[in-house]
């Protein structure tokens, strides 16, 4: 429950993450919907191997932020740098190719395909061109990736079930599996435990802890236990701006953050 229980990949804040360039960086990122500034001039950085939470009350701009990073929404100002390259305004399929994957707040799977097919389609999306002479190897490679992703989210045993027949919690985890199969450098999880029971939340928390060992993760979540236990650092958004940033302990001790959450 405490910050000390954060995953054991070392703290990127003072570890190797600080030595190399940030994996993701936004500069003055802004989105306006008509007269409403959903995001204003957000300067944000995530180090490699970091697990970062983005939290904030309703309407703080969290989903808008995710939508910009993943190309669902074009920012109206500012820049997004990923892995040393500018990706501002790129379409979502290109951003996915560059290595940013996401899961959605609302479950987004192919219900009438098997669990395996759901994940394999994502694994296949990484092939840039079809080559009739190399297809055999390609398939082996794709199957391997698919299996690894299913293993990571604990769904290998259900590979041949129809996705529609999975429980809600399993479907949410399948979505993470689909994202993993694209072999991302950065995984964005939008409320991965939304609508889950306490037991399912615990399982998904362990799942994220496992995959976080070799992946940079950005997570929007309302379950504070999940946030505090899994994340190295937390960014608090409020009215489209960064209100605070720090370790779980620093955020918990920040009176401004408590004020915003309780509306005092």
């Amino acid at each position, binding site marked *: 429950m405490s910050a000390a229980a954060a995953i054991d990949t070392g703290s990127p804040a003072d570890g190797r993450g600080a030595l190399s360039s940030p994996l993701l960086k936004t500069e003055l990122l802004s989105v306006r919907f008509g007269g409403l500034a959903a995001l204003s001039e957000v300067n944000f950085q995530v180090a490699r191997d970091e697990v970062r939470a983005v*939290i904030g*009350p*309703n*309407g703080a701009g969290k989903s808008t932020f995710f939508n910009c990073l993943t190309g669902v929404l074009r920012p109206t100002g500012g820049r997004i740098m990923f892995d040393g390259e500018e990706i501002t305004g790129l379409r979502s399929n290109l951003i996915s190719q560059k290595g940013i994957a996401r899961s959605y707040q609302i*479950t987004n799977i192919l219900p009438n395909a098997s669990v395996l097919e759901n994940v394999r389609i994502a694994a296949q999306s990484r092939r840039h061109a079809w080559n009739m002479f190399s297809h055999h190897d390609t398939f082996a490679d794709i199957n391997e990736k698919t299996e690894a992703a299913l293993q990571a989210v604990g769904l290998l045993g259900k590979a041949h079930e129809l996705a529609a027949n*999975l*429980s*809600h919690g399993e*479907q949410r985890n399948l979505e993470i599996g689909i994202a993993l199969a694209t072999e991302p450098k950065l995984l964005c999880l939008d*409320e991965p435990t*939304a*609508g*889950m*029971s*306490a037991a399912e*939340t615990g399982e998904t928390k362990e799942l994220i802890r496992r995959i976080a060992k070799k992946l940079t993760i950005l997570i929007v979540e*309302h*379950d*504070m236990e999940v946030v505090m236990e899994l994340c190295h650092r937390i960014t*608090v958004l409020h009215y489209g701006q960064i209100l605070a940033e720090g370790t779980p302990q620093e*955020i*918990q001790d*920040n009176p401004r*953050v*408590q004020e915003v*959450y*309780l*509306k*005092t």
Partner: protein
Amino acid sequence: MSTANGDAAAESATPLVRVDDVHTYYGKSHILHGVSLTVGRGEVVGLLGRNGVGKSTTLKTIMGLVQPSRGTVAFGGNAITGLPPHKLARMGIGYVPEDRRIFRLLTVMENLRTGLDRAGVGEDKRKALLDKVFAYFPVLAERRSQAGGTLSGGEQQMLAIARAMMLEPRIILLDEPTEGLMPRMVSQIGQIIEALHDEGIAILLVEQNVPLTLQASKRVYIMEKGLVRHHCAASEIDVNDAVIKQYLGV
């Protein structure tokens, strides 16, 4: 309307709304995991919790907008589980959804008349009801011919509450009335809740604004992950209480 005193006593002892062990799903997603709560006659009850814990779903389940797979909802001692929203509205349950759902292209007056044009409401009664809400919300009287969509957020919220009042409800289910409103409007919503309470209307108030909820309510329920995790008199806790921090803070 009881004739014998004994019945009257029994009636006043029965809560106005009783939600008992309700389980509600959206598709496969199990949202409410056995929610139980009561609202007394004329009582203001707060329902607190973080985003996504099932507060709005609890209101929708009471209002018949979603059907629980298990559990019961009773109104005035009678089972209402599974009844459609329009019947519940006529029985005296008012609902003000989080997104307000005013008719943007209809005028303020037309919005109000959607709740007014119903059988058994004579001209005098209509006038009395309109006079009452216009006394509560003078700004709506000023803007009676203006399209609902041109009102400010706070005015739209007032219109949504006023429209619910047209049905002379015994309870209003109020879903995050202060969301997105500026501070001045927030305190005005607090006054409106107080005024409704003075009229004898019960309120089940879903809110993120903790001070407002503690001030307006007699009792509060705090939800987490589809369950009521804490229940107490609003006077027992304040915003600095450990239970508030645990379930609502960071």
